């Protein structure tokens, strides 16, 4: 097996506090996992706010350097990416999708600008027709077309559509790995499934691996192949989605699992009544 991404005992500490009450915050502690290059998968990182999941994502994207440990992408240490050329090469293989699509796009810029500039920068295209063809192709993958997006501003589209455009932009360089940090938390419940289904499709048709970061256990169960659960920087449980989320063994993952309300009025209202009695 050749590894696409390898995390080996990765740690990240932050110094917090002022001059007199300085302390160290261990944001990520001893995280190790490997993604297989030949078998694309949806790898989910579950955790609450403050669990270190976003810090992990930022390290994978090369935006943060780990305090100790190594992250290797296709055999190469991410921290050793130094020159502009190497950086561009790395970025064309690993692409991010952010939480809030309304903040990711400048409201005063047309959306096609982001797509065209990504195509020019990463694919080295100069010719206008070639840039447009590449953009249109990746928009087709997410169920849109250039004709629908050209000249539009972000306020003209719904959150679900914007998030699709963010995915299309990430697809232009032909990445092997997409890091999606809470991609559906700002999207409406009715449109959430279309984004989540899209990830599944990308994995199956384009062979892209996806690191899906979320606090929503139900969508995590729905699409993931493997899951890790993070709590205060530690990975408390890891394994196949059915095992970890269907049958959690660690105390914290069990608490998380039981905090998910089932979409069934009989069961859910019984849970709330039970809580009420305990109060």
């Amino acid at each position: 097996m050749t590894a696409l991404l390898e995390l080996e005992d990765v740690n990240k500490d932050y110094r917090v506090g002022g001059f007199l009450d300085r302390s160290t915050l261990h944001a990520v502690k001893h995280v190790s996992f490997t993604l297989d290059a030949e078998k694309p998968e949806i790898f989910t990182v579950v955790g609450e706010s403050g669990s270190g999941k976003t810090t992990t994502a930022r390290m994978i994207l090369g935006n943060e350097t780990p305090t100790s440990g190594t992250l290797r992408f296709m055999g190469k240490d991410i921290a050793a990416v130094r020159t502009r050329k190497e950086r561009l090469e790395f970025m064309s293989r690993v692409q991010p999708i952010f939480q809030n699509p309304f903040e990711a796009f400048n409201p005063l810029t047309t959306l096609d600008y982001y797509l065209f500039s990504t195509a020019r920068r990463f694919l080295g295209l100069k010719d206008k027709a070639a840039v447009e063809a590449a953009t249109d192709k990746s928009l087709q993958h997410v169920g849109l077309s250039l004709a629908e997006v050209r000249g539009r501003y972000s306020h003209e589209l719904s959150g679900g559509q914007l998030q699709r455009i963010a995915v299309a932009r990430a697809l232009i360089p032909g990445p092997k790995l997409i890091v999606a940090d809470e991609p559906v938390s700002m999207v409406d419940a009715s449109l959430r499934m279309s984004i989540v289904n899209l990830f599944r499709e990308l994995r199956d048709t384009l062979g892209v691996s996806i690191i899906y970061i979320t606090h929503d256990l139900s969508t995590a169960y729905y699409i993931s192949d493997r899951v890790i659960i993070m709590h205060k920087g530690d990975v408390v449980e890891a394994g196949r989605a059915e095992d970890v989320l269907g049958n959690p063994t660690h105390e914290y993952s069990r608490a998380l699992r039981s905090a998910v309300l089932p979409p069934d009025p009989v069961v859910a209202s019984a849970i709330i009544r039970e809580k009420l009695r305990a109060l």
Partner: protein
Amino acid sequence: MLAAVENKPVSVETKPVLRVEGLKAYYQMNYFGVRREVRAVDDVSLTINRNEIYGIAGESSSGKSSLIKTIAGAITPPLRVVEGSVKFDFGGKELDVYAQRPAMKAARWKHLSYVMQGSMNVLNPVRKVKHAFHDFAFKHMGLREGEFRARVESHLQRIGLDPRVLESYPHQLSGGMRQRLTIGLATVCEPEFIIADEPTTALDVLVQQDVLALIKGVQQRMGSSIIFVTHDMTVHAAIADRIGIVYAGRLVEEGPTLDVFQRPQHPYTAHLIASLPRIGDTRKRVALPGKPPNLADPPSGCRFHPRCPLAVDKCKSENPPLLARNSGRVACWRAGEVEAA
């Protein structure tokens, strides 16, 4: 004898606490002679009973926030009430929100309060929490300083907060505690009617259930009514007695929670419920095609028809009225047919 013992106390008064009739509220703008009209609330009629939690569900930009703002009488231009009325019944006295402005002002917070979404935005970050209570509630309670403080402290204790939080600043408290505080703030006057706008959306999953139980507990103790707005159907499943589904400014379906979940009558509701992911089930969920309609230029006829799998020609031209059907009400020309599909 035993049959009379039910979950809820049998209320003697049958008069509903809130009646909304034919309410239309539009955003009307007039820039450089160009008139624009966004029909955010379009012909909504509903009643809410005493001692009831009424859930309002709908996607963002469906007009659900405009609807509750209009009900609370908290609207500012360009949003204007074009037609219809909102009438509360507080202790036998009828109060028309848009006809009796001064009486409405006096009733606010004492009879009608509001739990807002972002708890950080409600509490002033540079003032201690006790000042927030003073600003919101002191005037309405008619108590002296000392009595007021004692009342607030005992109220906080009842909702599971240490009275010492009054002396702290908002940033010193966790998100769950802050949300408890905003609930405390809204319930300290024991109002008959509470409007809750996405009170659990910004919370971590682990505290969500506690906050929901707290809201339910406060509601049961005071016997008040709550309008609970969220797009998360699982939250409605957990605490709402009845649910109203809003689509593009209109109420498209309404009914008891259990019936809405088990036998949805409107295709939009059916889709919302079918697309909910469940742990233990990885069957593929189909997402609704298309996008939410633009309320400045809504589709003709039934506003859901461009995305509806059951649409026929009639849906494109004629707007279906909201009619009583089974245990609830539904606005759809093909209302019966979703159940079979």
